[in-house]
């Protein structure tokens, strides 16, 4: 009986904690929280976002925290339910997030993101060679995308595949279709031969090549896609109300003002430039045509 009274007491205490917890944490200067889609090796993410957090805290005058997430949709969810106010999204996840949170804006992209590319990479055993035209010989092989919600690893490659094989879905074109989860993993899977061909973000390919993680004898680029807009910093529309008027502009200026190579290098970007939601309109069309957006 005592044990049960105790358990009952626990339950009520817990409910109290669950209900009052978030509210109590809200009180004084609310920290500014951001996240990023986990598109590559986690150690690199921790390095780059840790540096961004320190930098932004100095520029914005509010505590800035980075919260790591395990997959792309979790980053979008954290943005839609308001746990984070800023996120480094891919082109497609950015479109998803801004459609779900009215008033949110894309404010800055990497200089490279205006004209981003997908690489199709193939295992050496396939004998596929680099070509300028879409490599139709990949039909019937095994193929891995990156994350399901990736722009350069899913949305755009799927769009190009559907264009090259009209009326067919990737599942019909290939022997087997996989979703690796992130770009570093895509490279590993194609390199090991687990999948014959894969679609990968060109900047992650370059970063991983520089880091010595790519074995040129086992895996190589067989096609470079046409260009499309990709990654961007997206901020919620309600930050001015929370952190003071003009906060969005201050944040934008801070991001564009990043010149420290130590921050830019782990991003694989040379600098950040201003951008607006309109730059990503083409991706909405692509999303609709591939059935990933309503």
């Amino acid at each position, binding site marked *: 009986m005592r044990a049960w009274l105790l358990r009952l007491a626990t339950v009520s205490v817990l409910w109290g904690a669950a209900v009052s917890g978030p509210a109590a944490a809200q009180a004084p200067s609310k920290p500014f929280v951001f996240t990023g889609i986990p598109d590559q090796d986690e150690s690199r993410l921790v390095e780059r976002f840790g540096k961004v957090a320190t930098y932004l805290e100095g520029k914005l005058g509010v505590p800035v925290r980075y919260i790591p997430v395990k997959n792309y949709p979790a980053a979008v969810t954290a943005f839609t339910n308001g*746990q984070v106010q800023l996120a480094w999204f891919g082109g497609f996840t950015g479109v998803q997030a801004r459609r779900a949170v009215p008033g949110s804006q894309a404010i800055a992209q990497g200089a490279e993101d205006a004209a981003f590319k997908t690489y199709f990479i193939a295992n050496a055993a396939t004998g596929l060679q680099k070509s300028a035209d879409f490599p139709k010989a990949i039909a019937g092989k095994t193929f891995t995308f990156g994350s399901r919600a990736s722009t350069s690893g899913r949305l755009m490659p799927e769009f190009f595949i559907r264009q090259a094989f009209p009326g067919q879905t990737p599942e019909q074109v290939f022997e087997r279709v996989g979703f690796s989860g992130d770009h570093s993993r895509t490279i590993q899977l194609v390199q090991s031969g687990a999948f014959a061909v894969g679609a990968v973000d060109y900047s992650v390919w370059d970063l991983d090549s520089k880091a010595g993680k790519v074995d040129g004898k086992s895996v190589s680029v067989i096609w470079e896609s046409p260009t499309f807009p990709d990654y961007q910093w997206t901020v919620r529309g309600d930050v001015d109300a929370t952190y003071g008027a003009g906060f969005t502009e201050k944040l934008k200026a801070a991001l564009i003002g990043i010149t420290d190579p130590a921050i830019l290098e782990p991003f694989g970007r040379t600098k950040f430039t201003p951008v607006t939601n309109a730059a990503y309109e083409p991706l909405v069309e692509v999303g609709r045509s591939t059935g990933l957006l309503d």
Partner: protein
Amino acid sequence: MRLHVLPGILPAPRWPRPGYAAVSRWFAILGLAALLAADLHVTSLHPWSDLERLLGGLVRPDFLAVEGASILYTVAFAVLGVGLGAGAGFLLAIPYARFRAVRIACAFLRAVHELFWALLLMQVFGLSATTGILAIALPYAGICAKVYAEIIEEADLSALRVLPAGSDPVSAFAYARLPEVLASIRAYTFYRLECGMRSTLVLGFIGLPTIGFYLESAFRQGRYGEAGALMLVFYALIGTRRLWVRGWTLPLLVLGAILALPPMVGSTDVGASLARFLGHDIVPAPLRHASLLAPDTWLETWAALWAWFRPILTGQILPGTLQTLVLAQVALVATAIGALVLFPLTARHFAGPVARPFGRVLLVTVRSTPEYMLAYVALQLLGPSMLPAILALSIHNAGIIGYLMGRHADGLTYRPDAPRGLNLYAYETVPRLYGQFLAYLLYRWEIILRESAIFGILGVATLGFYVDAAIAELRLDVAAVLILATALVAIAVDAASRALRRSLRIADLPVRLASTDTPRSSAPVTA
């Protein structure tokens, strides 16, 4: 005068009552058919070298890399989640037998896997302690309500009968019924805490800061020394559970857990998120701006709803359900074979004094390893097909059933001139334990099915695969329908399992782990 026919007692069966052999045969045939339909392709080229590196990590663990807080959070989430779930389960257990609505609600709560609950709760509560605790508490409330109700049902009523007439129901319950069932309930709840720690570990794989969070990172990036250390820490936590989870440590554990909860990074607007989630996100898209009852447009709305639902049914629910059932069937038969092979390892009459402790450690280790984590690792090693999922499910469940069967085998009394070795195994032990064996297996069927569905998140094309896709596409209405379908399949399998156990007359045998963990405190152990 035919004395052996007693019409009133033996009703004419509508169909021949199946025997152990027939049921086993049918399950094996279905398992074989499922095996032919299953995708068992190994896509990885060097699984052995990866496995070698993984085992190397277990042999040379890197304990310095372990994030200490993750251990604390794992225990804290488990203690509070199970505590809340058990508390709610106990309150639900009282009206459980009387109200069908309560039974249906509990069946639904436990039919949805804790990972699915976490994915849904995250939409509202974000990556927070609330999400972690509720994701455990909700399904555990459903499970505990059912089991507590069964324990109360089975209890001895003699104390109740001698109460004076007019005793009020609360006193009657507190003084005549509770003392009878408290020991069983306690043993079961403590055992549940162990399950709760497995569940919280797995929640880390989707972003909560438990051991699983760091395990996933370590596996993904090939830091096997860190992964090995994390796994050893987890085994130590499970292995020492009986030492630190006791009646008197409970208040300390609960208080400590509340104090140890991770502070939330950022905060969600719970009210607005909940309203958006319930009022918009999970409402089927065609119904968001229309009503099914509006007099002038209801026909179009119903048509739009059907047009929305049809492709989900034919393209996702049906193929996903088929694959889930195929995986569960193969895994169930593989579990059965595995358990029959493994249990002699832990039984006195078959394993020598040297081999038996090793057998026990082996089985306890595989049973402590969450099947989701096993599947994750096997998928990294073998590539995305059903094979790693089958391996994970059958290793984990064969470990559980094998361990329990070993204990039952030790409880049997043999004739002094009983045969030995294979003869004893094949002609006496297995036949005597077979009913108990089937009871365990049928009971695990539903659990295996729930896990089969969730493995879709890892890339096997079961129902979870489509849930994962719907969440990636931010179509929570589709995800909600798919999760509901998964729950219905689990409930159906549970019902089939119970019907089979009843018709085999093995419904009264113990099937809960906790009831054999403390054989003296509850139902008889021998079959």
